């Protein structure tokens, strides 16, 4: 039996990057995957191909996670179609780096809206549906910067610190309903965006890479493997945990 065989999973921010790789892994692990993003983009074609390749269903669902009514409608749509929701991965996030003195209030509010408020909203809505069918698993994507901090990331790291705190509190509050809540805290991950950053300031990034004990950058697949594990029944006695996927880094 596959790790996530027949689990009904919703992954936000799955249109590209790490979210898409998580969705690929979930499909490979046998889950029926609902992939969410703001716009369809190339999701329909990719979802069809991914589903065919893995012998499962991959269904795009477009809505804005910060729009409570749309989020609720999206969740109810999945629940009515499948009869349950087993897993939610809160991956959608905004990342922008600014030095102190250049952190604008509108950007700060937007970042908190997507990275924190929408996650709380998702948890409080999805948990009620999960509770109806005996439980579930919620995996939030945090960041190593939320644990150890990082220069130029005061705004971003504060949202991820909040994700860590809310993960621990939600885990405690939802455990009576058999809903597990965990987070994955990635370190430096080699995404498309990272490659752009590397071209701009490779020297600084090389210094950071030298502080990764495992001697390499993380990959989206490293993150996806951890998320898939926490979502699965193999992590059935793990809740309120922040799992670092950082190569034993000290950024």
């Amino acid at each position, binding site marked *: 039996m596959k790790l996530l065989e027949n689990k009904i999973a919703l992954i936000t921010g799955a249109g590209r990057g790490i979210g898409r790789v998580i969705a690929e892994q979930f499909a490979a692990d046998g889950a029926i995957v609902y992939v969410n993003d703001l716009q369809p983009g190339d999701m329909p074609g990719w979802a069809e191909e991914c589903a065919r390749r893995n012998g499962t269903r991959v269904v795009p669902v477009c809505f804005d996670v910060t729009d*409570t009514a749309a989020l*609720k409608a999206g969740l*109810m749509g999945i629940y009515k179609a499948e009869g349950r929701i087993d897993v939610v991965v809160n991956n959608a996030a905004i990342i922008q780096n600014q030095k102190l003195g250049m952190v604008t209030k509108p950007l700060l509010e937007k970042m908190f809206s997507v990275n924190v408020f929408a996650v709380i909203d998702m948890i409080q*809505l999805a948990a*009620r549906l999960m*509770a*109806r069918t005996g439980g579930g698993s919620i995996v939030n994507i945090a960041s190593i910067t939320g644990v150890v901090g990082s220069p130029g990331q005061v705004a971003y790291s504060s949202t991820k610190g909040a994700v860590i705190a809310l993960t621990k509190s939600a885990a405690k509050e939802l455990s009576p309903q058999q809903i597990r809540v965990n987070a994955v805290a990635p370190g430096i991950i080699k995404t498309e965006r990272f490659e752009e950053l590397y071209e701009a300031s490779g020297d600084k990034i090389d210094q950071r890479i030298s502080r990764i004990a495992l001697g390499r950058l993380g990959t989206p697949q490293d993150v996806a493997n951890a998320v898939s594990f926490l979502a699965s029944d193999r992590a059935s006695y793990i809740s309120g945990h922040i799992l670092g996927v950082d190569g034993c880094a000290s950024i």
Partner: protein
Amino acid sequence: MSNLEQLNSIFCEVFSVDAEALGAGFDNKSVSGWDSVRQLSLTSSVEDTFDIMLDPEDILEFTSYENAKAILAKYDIEL
């Protein structure tokens, strides 16, 4: 069972009362043990029974039997 009977049944089960006790005065100020946990249990049962998802504001306002009926009307549940 009608929608009203189903709603009454939920209240009776959550608060361990007979249906005759339900009415205008049945609210969180007069009913002993009506705390936030009991209120969430009440709204959770209502959501299950009527296959709806209440907004957080409506869950907060679910503080009396009469409020409950008014809120359900917003979700097109005829009582």
